[in-house]
Every structure is written in C-alpha cells, then in structure tokens.
C-alpha cells in the first residue's frame, strides 16, 4: 500500500496586480476542491473517480476558465474541451468543441469507458453526449458578464487573451500590452501577462 497525494490547478499566468480579494476567492475554491479530493481519497475512491469528481467541482464554479466561466470564442460562444487518463492501463478519453455539456470532464470519462474511441469532437461529441444522457444546458449557462467584458477588450485590442482572469480595471492595460508586445501567435499579438 502506498500513500495518496493530490494536486489541483486553476490556470497559469496571473496578473501580478490581481486584487487581494480575487486572490482569496481563488485560494478558497482551490482549498475546497482539495478537501473534496482528500475526503474521497480517505474513502478509498479510485484515483480516476477522484480526478473526475474534483474537476467537475472546478467546472461548476465560474471562477476559473472551464465549464461555467469558460473563455469565449471570437463568436462570443463557449467551446469547451477536456481529457482524462487512468494510469494503470493508460486508458484515456477526450472531448472538444462542446457547447451544451454541463461537465465536459464526465463526457471525456464516458468516451474512455463507453466508446471504442479515445477522442470525440464537436457535433460527434455532442451527439454522444445526448446518447449517454449526460446533463445538457444552454450555451448561455457557461457565459459570465465578466467574460463578455473580457471578450470586448480582446476584440478592441485585436488580441487573443489567454487569461480572462485579469480584472477589468487593469484589463485595458493588459490588452494594450498585447498590442505593444512584439510577441505573435498565429499572426495575432498575445499579451505576456495574460497567459493562462
């Protein structure tokens, strides 16, 4: 018997000026998710069940960029993607281009468990979701006011912004920074402080 360990993340690339209350909010959510995982491990749940449980919790809270609170595409809609992998037999499942699936990580798990494939995307993934009977919601469910504001700024700066968590009061500086930085990705300027 070994000993258990767990780690969670909510994205990389953070505005150095992120307000303290936003930092505390993020730490509280990370702490809550860690405790959820620890309690599952203490109940001897298998690792693959624990990672799905914790990521579902992170997808449901709008604070980070997944599920509810996801970053918006150029069309102002949400297209989500996720993957999951079980170490012992290296089984895996992945999905992309999801627009109605409330918890993408659970659909990725079903691809691994209930399909002969490893990866389903866009309409095929959505059809699989309907067949599997997972919870479906309107794309609106995933969209937050804050991200609508972020998208507007990103469009004004004609930039791809990695981390929508940059607070709106510094956003214009962030987005402007992207205009001034020489760094390009796919022909569009990217903002150094705004990676995710």
């Amino acid at each position, binding site marked *: 018997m*070994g*000993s*258990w*360990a*767990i*780690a*969670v*993340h*909510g*994205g*990389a*690339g*953070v505005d*150095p000026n992120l307000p303290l209350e936003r*930092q505390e909010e993020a*730490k509280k959510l*990370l*702490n809550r998710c*860690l405790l959820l995982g620890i309690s599952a*491990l203490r109940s001897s749940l*298998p*690792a*693959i069940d624990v*990672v799905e449980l*914790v*990521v579902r919790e992170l997808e449901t809270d709008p604070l*980070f*960029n*997944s599920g509810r*609170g*996801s*970053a918006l595409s150029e069309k102002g809609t*949400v*297209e*989500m*993607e*996720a*993957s*999951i*992998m*079980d*170490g*012992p037999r*290296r089984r*895996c499942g*992945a999905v*992309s*281009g999801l627009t109605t699936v409330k918890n*993408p990580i659970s659909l*990725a798990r079903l691809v691994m468990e209930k399909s002969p494939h490893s*990866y389903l995307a*866009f309409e095929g993934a959505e059809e699989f979701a309907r067949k599997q009977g997972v919870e479906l919601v309107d794309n609106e469910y995933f969209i937050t006011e804050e*991200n609508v504001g972020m998208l507007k700024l*990103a469009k004004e700066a004609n930039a*791809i*912004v*990695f981390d929508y968590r940059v607070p709106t009061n510094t956003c214009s500086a962030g987005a402007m920074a992207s205009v001034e930085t020489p760094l390009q*990705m796919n022909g569009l300027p990217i903002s150094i402080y705004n*990676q*995710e």
Partner: protein
Amino acid sequence: TVGCVVVDGQGRCAAATSTGGLMNKMSGRIGDSPLIGSGTYAGDLCAISCTGEGEAIIRATLARDVAAVMEYKGLSLQDAVDYVIKERLDEGKAGLIAVSKDGKVAYGFNTTGMFRGCATEDGFMEVGIWE
C-alpha cells in the same frame, strides 16, 4: 483551464484537465487540454495536468515528457517537472501539476503565477498563486 492529478492509496495515478480555451479564439481551435500526452497524461509512474499557452504545450508534448524523463532518465518527479518547464517550452509560457506512484506531488511554472493546491497523506497541504 483547470486540472487535477491524484495517486490513490493503491498507487494508481490519474489525471484530468478541462478548459474553455482562449478568449477570442477562432471557432474550432483545439488547445492542449484535450490532447493526451500534451495537456494531460497518466501512466504507471505519474500523472500530469498542464495549463498555459496551448500551442507551446502541444509542441513540447509537455505532460508525456514529464513521464518520459522519469522513465528513461530516472529523474525524480520534481526534477522531471523542473526539467521540462525549463528545457522543453522554448519561448512558451505554461505550468503543470504532477503526482507520482510513490505519493509525491510536484508543480512547476514559468508564468507570473499559477493557481494551485496540493496535499499528501502525511499531512502536507498547500494552496498558492505566486512563486
């Protein structure tokens, strides 16, 4: 992007990653999160979940590289994480979390910060954002 990696009491590793992608991304753009071996990987030895500049993580096959340098070069988990963050990202910016079969936990990032938390059965627990 959000992620979780676990090794349970039986030594079984697993990893999961989920994301909305990039703000203002082209419709149909796929990042690293759904790509096994890039944004997510789990094997006998370890489990990894990545976040950051998707295109750089894909080029580096970052998650699998952590497992590979452990397997082929015999690096420890933290050394493997430090190596791939330092050597494999080129100009890219990213971070990752990892656990290993023997109950270790590690993380690394070359961005301004990473929202992360980790805990082990022997009572260690940490939540952080900055270096």
